[in-house]
């Protein structure tokens, strides 16, 4: 440990592992440390099941839960958008070959007390009970507009400048009613709240395009989920970092981040050892005095011995409860994975209900989500603070990631990573650096 590094990365959550991989690939000498004896931090998948129960101080699971080692339970629910940033990062870095994925079987949206499938094609759209016949026609015209829209080609804008006009304006142009707006903004564009309505329409157009491009890749839904749980993702990027020379130490407590002149970081101390470095990259838990609380997120892990009603017994699914439907400001998300992803024993399902906390009684806030699940065998609730760094790290050279937010996918996660990489290195990540070398390595 008593060496000098370009960068020391603290914590092996997904963001830190992607950063570590990108830094190593760019030729930086990286030391990557975690205080835990396992990879993943907050983005680990907990195994065996006994570990999860003891983490939440619950009595040990009985034999109906099968073998504990068959379980890998995520603490933070997320899916990958099939055409999203994380998939691009996985493919361009070659990390994808360490992983296998399954398509999520379907996406549902909550309306008027029941759930309906988000249509994936014309046929499903025509049969959908989400909107009436005339509204369907208007919605179809809207989708065609979005599909044909090209940012560089003003002809495709059809007399509507999406960078100066807001999204509400675009909805009004097509005469879409409130329910359809709700469905579009929350189940397709995947916004957490309604602030987007006043933002330039271009952002929403691009998010709907991401949704449909992702859907086009594998068909059933725009989402992917890795076999053995989300905890495989940080491990994959950690391996990338190691392959490019990164040094890994787990189970290593960090006692101090050592500062030098002008408050600039010069090293990291663990016990009597000091590793010197020019930069530190870390998650908020390693620098409590350099982050502030932004919000709280409630997540409830539910173990079920049955699929969710009205999802055609889907082995994986996502249900979005748009905020307006239940009188809230932010959406409630339900994500379901199961034994088919090697994250639960045969016959078991893991549902996660989550949202941004708005009241002093967060558990009652997620009730509409829990009510969709049917009998719940075991429930683990956690309310976690969502932190953001107090500065951009340019002075201290300590670059801090934001906590994982309540969104259902990894787009904001990747944007944070790319932003931090740019702050730390003054350049955008050059994907070509990996491609070439991997080409030689792989026969």
């Amino acid at each position, binding site marked *: 440990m008593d060496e000098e590094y370009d960068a020391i990365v603290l914590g092996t959550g997904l963001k830190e592992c992607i950063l570590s991989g990108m830094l190593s690939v760019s030729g930086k000498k990286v030391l990557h440390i975690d205080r835990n004896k396992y*990879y993943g931090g907050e983005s680990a998948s907990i*195994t065996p099941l006994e570990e999860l129960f003891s983490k939440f101080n619950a009595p040990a699971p009985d034999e109906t839960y099968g073998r504990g080692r068959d379980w890998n339970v995520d603490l933070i629910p997320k899916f990958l958008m099939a055409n999203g940033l994380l*998939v691009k990062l*996985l*493919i361009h870095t*070659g990390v*994808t*070959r*360490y*992983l*296998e*994925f*399954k398509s999520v079987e379907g996406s549902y949206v909550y309306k008027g007390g029941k759930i309906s499938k988000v249509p994936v094609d014309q046929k499903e759209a025509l049969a959908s009970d989400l909107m009436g016949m005339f509204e369907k026609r208007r919605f179809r015209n809207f989708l065609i507009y979005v599909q044909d829209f090209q940012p560089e080609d003003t002809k495709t804008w059809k007399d509507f400048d999406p960078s100066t006009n807001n999204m509400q304006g675009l909805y009004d142009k097509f005469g879409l009613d409130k329910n359809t707006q709700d469905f579009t903004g929350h189940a397709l564009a995947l916004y957490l709240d309604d602030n987007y309505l006043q933002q330039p329409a271009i952002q929403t157009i691009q998010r709907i395009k991401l949704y449909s491009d992702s859907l086009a890749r*594998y068909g059933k839904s725009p989402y*992917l989920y*890795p*076999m*053995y749980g989300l905890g*495989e993702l940080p*491990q*994959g990027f*950690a*391996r990338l970092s*190691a*392959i*490019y*020379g990164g*040094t*890994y*130490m*787990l189970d290593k407590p960090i006692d101090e981040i050592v500062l030098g002149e002008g408050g600039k970081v010069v090293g990291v101390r663990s016990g009597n050892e000091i590793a010197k470095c020019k930069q530190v990259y870390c998650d908020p838990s390693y620098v409590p005095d350099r982050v502030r609380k932004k919000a709280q997120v409630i997540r409830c892990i539910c173990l079920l011995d049955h699929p969710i009603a009205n999802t055609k017994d889907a082995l994986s699914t996502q249900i979005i409860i748009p905020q307006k439907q239940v009188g809230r400001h932010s959406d409630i998300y339900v994500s379901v994975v199961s034994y*088919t*992803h*090697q994250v639960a024993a045969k016959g078991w399902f893991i549902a996660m209900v989550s949202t941004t906390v708005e009241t002093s009684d967060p558990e009652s806030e997620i009730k509409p989500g829990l009510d969709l699940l049917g009998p719940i065998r075991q429930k683990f609730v956690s309310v976690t603070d969502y932190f953001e760094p107090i500065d951009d790290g340019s002075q201290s050279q300590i670059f801090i990631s934001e906590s994982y937010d309540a969104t259902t996918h990894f787009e904001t996660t990747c944007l944070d990573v790319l932003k931090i990489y740019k702050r730390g290195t003054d350049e955008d990540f050059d994907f070509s650096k990996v491609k070439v*070398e991997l080409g030689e*390595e*792989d*026969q």
Partner: protein
Amino acid sequence: MSVSSSRGAAARPNGAPQTKVCQFKLVLLGESAVGKSSLVLRFVKGQFHEYQESTIGAAFLTQTVCLDDTTVKFEIWDTAGQERYHSLAPMYYRGAQAAIVVYDITNQDTFGRAKNWVKELQRQASPSIVIALAGNKSDLAAKRMVETEEAQAYADENHLLFMETSAKTAVNVNDIFLAIANKLPKSESVGGGAAGGGRRLADGEPPRAGGCCK
């Protein structure tokens, strides 16, 4: 373990159309500097570098072995140095159908560590994993510290394949991979990379068919 095919058979796929192809994940384990990467480089590329750098860059290689009626494709995972501070991720063992645990015959400590790696595999990996023990650097017999008989007895006790190898002179390198290929079950239900039933992602590539023997 007798090896029926000739050494040359392990070198390249022969392109015979009728043979079925089975893919297996093989992981390497062992202390730093026992020659894990050198064994793979010798096997895959026929190369040896006296001063092989600590593993950088090349940590995922494939090589094909042809048996009588089957082509066995190894997907070989090197530790990428993550063994140094005992920080190998569970992902490394996940779905591995074969492992080569390597020690250095001139260093008794590395043999002791090899035994620990075998225990680790028995704990973490699939119960049906085929494990081979390789006493590497057999060209340095003059400096030998681990007796062949001792290692052989340990291997027999634990049902491991065992060979003394030399990445430098190529002795027993192809043979140990061939022995593993022979011992691996080639039924329809096993094989196929990580065997989890998912798909790999690739640029524009259609979903990969799962399972063995496509």
